[in-house]
């Protein structure tokens, strides 16, 4: 066998196999069960225990590039909170963030929920870590108008909110900086808020030390995290449906690594 040729296979074959591995299970789901990890279960249990009428803050710190991983998490948590009657306020320290918050909220407006009463989008504040610190200590002083140009003081949902301690939980939907570390340094550490993270899969390793130290109460990691949350809710949705594609994609990558290494070692052996 020509091991050298096998090592240098046309990359288009690799691309086609990857497309097939991800598209076929999306058309014909396999239904591989998704178990709920300890962190996702802790996340769910905490949100489930929040009484109706309390408020939760979403910090939408991601751009369109991170959306495929993070939006499913936001959708799952939002659905849970809306079903329970918990109110949601969103802020963003990435410029794309308010657009995703608005998309999320419009879905619920179509279902009869009311903007300004059940949820509100406070828009984007530039300034990175400084803006996070400022907002964390003084919500109302940092933002005068929301994303839809309403005065903050005219929104019923903002009644009683002074700083982030007035929220039952703060959830950072993060894809990078500013994000988790800035929230922990400037707000969680100083004000002692209940801080949660729902991040892109690639950000999970960097967030783990904060989970282990307790600074992050619980973490959802990427599409898998969203699927676990949907499973914990008992309402499998889009994220669970995409897990089959992720499973086959992972198996394919492992197969590629194995075949590539076998070809490498056999070629070396032949050369000797």
């Amino acid at each position, binding site marked *: 066998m020509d091991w050298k040729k096998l*090592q240098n*296979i046309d*990359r288009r074959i*690799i*691309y086609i196999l*990857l497309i097939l591995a991800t598209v076929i299970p999306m058309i014909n789901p396999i239904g*591989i*069960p*998704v*178990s709920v*990890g*300890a962190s996702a279960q802790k996340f769910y249990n905490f949100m489930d225990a929040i009484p109706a009428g309390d408020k939760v803050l979403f910090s939408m710190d991601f*751009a*369109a*590039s*991170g*959306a*495929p991983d993070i939006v499913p998490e936001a959708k799952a948590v939002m659905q849970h909170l809306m079903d329970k009657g918990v109110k949601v306020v969103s802020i963003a320290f990435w410029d*794309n963030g308010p*657009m995703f918050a*608005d*998309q999320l909220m419009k879905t619920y407006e179509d279902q009869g929920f009311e903007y300004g009463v059940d949820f509100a989008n406070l828009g984007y*504040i*530039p*300034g*990175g870590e*400084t*803006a996070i*610190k*400022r907002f964390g200590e*003084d919500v109302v002083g*940092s933002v005068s108008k929301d994303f839809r140009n309403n005065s903050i003081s005219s929104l019923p949902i903002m009644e009683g909110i002074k700083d982030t301690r007035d929220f039952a939980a703060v959830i950072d939907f993060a894809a990078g900086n500013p994000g988790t570390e800035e929230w922990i340094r400037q707000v969680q550490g100083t004000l002692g808020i209940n801080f949660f993270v729902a991040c892109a*899969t690639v950000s*999970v*390793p*960097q967030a*783990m*030390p904060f989970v*282990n130290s307790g600074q992050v109460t619980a973490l959802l*990691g990427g599409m*898998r995290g969203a*699927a676990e949350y949907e499973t914990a809710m008992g309402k499998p949705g889009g994220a669970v449906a995409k*897990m*089959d594609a*992720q*499973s*086959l*994609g*992972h*198996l*394919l*990558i*492992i197969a*590629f*690594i194995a*075949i*590539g*290494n076998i070809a*490498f*070692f056999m070629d070396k052996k032949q050369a000797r």
Partner: protein
Amino acid sequence: MRREVPLIITFVVGMIVLFANIVTSADGSDFFLKAWSTEIENWIIIVSAFAVGLATVNLFRIHGDNITRQRPGWFNSLALLLAIVVFAVVGSIARLGSSEFFDTLNPNLYDAIIAPLSAAMFAMLAFYIASSAYRAFRMRSLEATVMLIAAILIMLGKAPVGEMIWSKFPTISTWLMDIPNTVGQRAIMIGAAIGGFATSLRILLGIERGHLGGAE
């Protein structure tokens, strides 16, 4: 004076913010520096917003030059500047005016153009990763072998199919993330924090002047 004034501003502002977070009054309430620090933080937010405008001016300068001099790929520069103008105009009218057309157009432009294009750009990474996994991920050394085995265990632990193959894969994956990964990340974080502290001190004291630009 051209260099001294910015250095003095850096030092004074930095000291105010630093001490405002450390010092409290004898009765436990905020020191007067806290109010000054809060005002400075407000200014930083305003300056950050202004920086976006400054960046846009710079983009127009650079890409406008590409277009006027018809450099290779000048049409890409034209597309960029047109996109900036269209999005800025539509967004401004939607935000400041009360036109239903622009209120609908603004999010639709984002949902139809920026979001899918950005997602597609990052989706392409999956193909590059697959190709490089096949062609380059080789067990040439002990370290590469350890990394490869860890990567495979994490992949099998995170994908639902891994748990189907062997129920212990998620446990192994969780252990890898909780222990070796956390150890490494903590070491990096502590090192970066010490480095950041040293650099910040140098900037505050005017030893580091890179942020001033120009020749030393």
